[in-house]
């Protein structure tokens, strides 16, 4: 069986600028693939090519084994960052409109999680509730492939857990999911990750594959501010971490040297976080 979505050696140029360069990406049924990258990394251009909104300059894109078209579009659910709902229609009206676009049965009851918003205008609802409607809308025609652009932006932690539950339920039912996110804490919900930087895939695999053996040094001191200043003075890239600091990619001996005789200074090595590894990859690629 062919993958739900497949980009093979895809390149996209705009004039002299290469937005996506020789990228390979696959989404299989039942898996959640996370697409991570900074602004300008090429994520949005790649998604537009998968959706069939823009054509690849070279390489090929396939949805359900064929080139993207109107027909393939009907098997796909898409939640854009802006959610794509009509502000001055109610929840029920938005859902009815989608049903009509996809030629589906009318008068289907609203899913349980959005039923209580049926008569509310989208524009008057909280962002979290709007997101739930956008999800329900994208899922209403039981798509085989879901493409979600920053799906949980602005949602509280429990609301975010519930949205991920909806995403995972769709995957458990056999749909493939491609999710972009800026937030590394959500990467743990994805079975597989693809990291892009400057138009190129710089890493792919599970979070632990990608982190590999990367390390960071944790610094604790009586005064974190003094430790921060000393690391800064030594030219180390140092980040705030609770009441201490983290110095990614630098071994403890070097950090200890930078701290000198700082009172109460303690350093220890720990595995890097995905975010720290991400910066290492982006710096190396960029």
């Amino acid at each position, binding site marked *: 069986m062919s993958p739900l979505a497949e980009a093979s050696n895809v390149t996209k140029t705009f004039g002299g600028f290469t937005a996506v360069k020789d990228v390979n990406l696959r989404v299989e049924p039942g898996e959640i693939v996370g697409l*991570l*990258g*900074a*602004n*300008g990394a090429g994520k949005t251009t790649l998604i537009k090519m998968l959706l069939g909104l823009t054509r690849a300059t070279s390489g090929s894109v396939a949805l359900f084994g064929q080139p993207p078209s109107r027909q393939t579009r009907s098997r796909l659910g898409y939640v854009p960052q802006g959610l794509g709902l009509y502000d001055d229609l109610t929840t029920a009206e938005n859902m009815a409109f989608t049903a009509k676009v996809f030629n589906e049965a009318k008068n289907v009851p609203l899913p349980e999680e959005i039923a209580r918003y049926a008569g509310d205008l989208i524009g008057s609802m*909280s*962002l*979290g509730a709007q997101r739930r409607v956008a999800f329900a809308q994208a899922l209403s025609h039981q798509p085989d492939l879901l493409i979600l652009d*920053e799906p949980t*932006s*602005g*949602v*509280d*932690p*429990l*609301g975010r*857990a*519930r949205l*991920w*539950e909806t995403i*995972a339920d769709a995957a458990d039912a056999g749909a493939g999911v491609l999710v972009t996110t*800026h*937030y*590394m*804490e959500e990467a*743990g*919900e994805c*079975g597989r990750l693809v990291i892009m930087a400057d138009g190129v895939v710089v890493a792919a695999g599970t979070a632990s594959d990608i982190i590999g053996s990367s390390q960071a040094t944790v610094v604790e001191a009586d005064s*974190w*501010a003094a430790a*921060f*200043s000393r690391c800064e003075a030594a030219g180390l890239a*140092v*980040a*705030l*971490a*609770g*009441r201490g600091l983290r110095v990614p990619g630098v071994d403890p001996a070097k950090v200890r040297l930078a701290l000198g005789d700082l009172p109460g200074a303690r350093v220890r090595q720990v595995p890097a976080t995905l*975010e720290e590894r*991400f*910066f290492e990859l*982006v710096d190396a690629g960029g």
Partner: protein
Amino acid sequence: MTGWGTQDLTVRYGKKTALAKVTLQAQAGQVTAVVGGDGAGKTTLLRCLAGTLAPTTGTVRKPAKQRIGYLPSSSGIYPDLTVLENLDFRATSYKLPRQAARARAEEYLDRAGLADAKNRLAGQLSGGMRQKLAVIAAMLHQPDLLVLDEPTTGVDPVSRSGLWWLIARAAADGCAVVLATTYLDEAERCATVLVLDAGTALAAGPSDEIVAAMPGVLCRVADKPAGEAARRAWRRGGRWRVWLERPPDTPGAELVTPDLQDAVTVAAIAREITMTKEVAA
């Protein structure tokens, strides 16, 4: 009590209570996070701290107006001025010594990755670059209290790391920083955290203390539990977390050590359950 903050702060807009008895402490040289989703009351709290909104009841301890730096949720940057012109204008408004302010502006721009954008119009910057400029503008006069309303929302990871350098720098220079965020991984970087939900505090304190204070235990299971237990379960890392009042006596149950995200999720679930009971009663 030392530092800045609020005590039992309540704000009502007409009949709607935006904040109910919220207490926040912000110490010099520390970063305090205010976490919550859309509509939790974060902006209302920050506006009271910054002095742009008066409390209905309760007290606010804040420095004099010219010793506060405030980044509202809409950034307050002039799009028709260049990056440097924006900062020069800010320096003039605060009557800062010209040379010193310019030197500081250049250093911050350089460290935040904006050195090449100095002479670009602010209106032409990407969202992340504009946020970095806005934070630099808010901290340029080295305030005693820096109040930042969602400085990193919608910002990509690279700009976000530049923003966090600026935030750490302000705190290292002795400023009390209070910032709003929807993200718990950002809250974990801060010395203390206040979790807001529908205008009330769900949890407050250093993140390790919030985690330690979590009632009950957490179990990890493969499948979503059925019935009533489903309300106490959520999906995380491809498996299910279930919050229980006491360790289960079922053999093979796998207990997990909670983190801040777990503790905050549990607090939200506990509130949901309490509210349902009140409605039922």
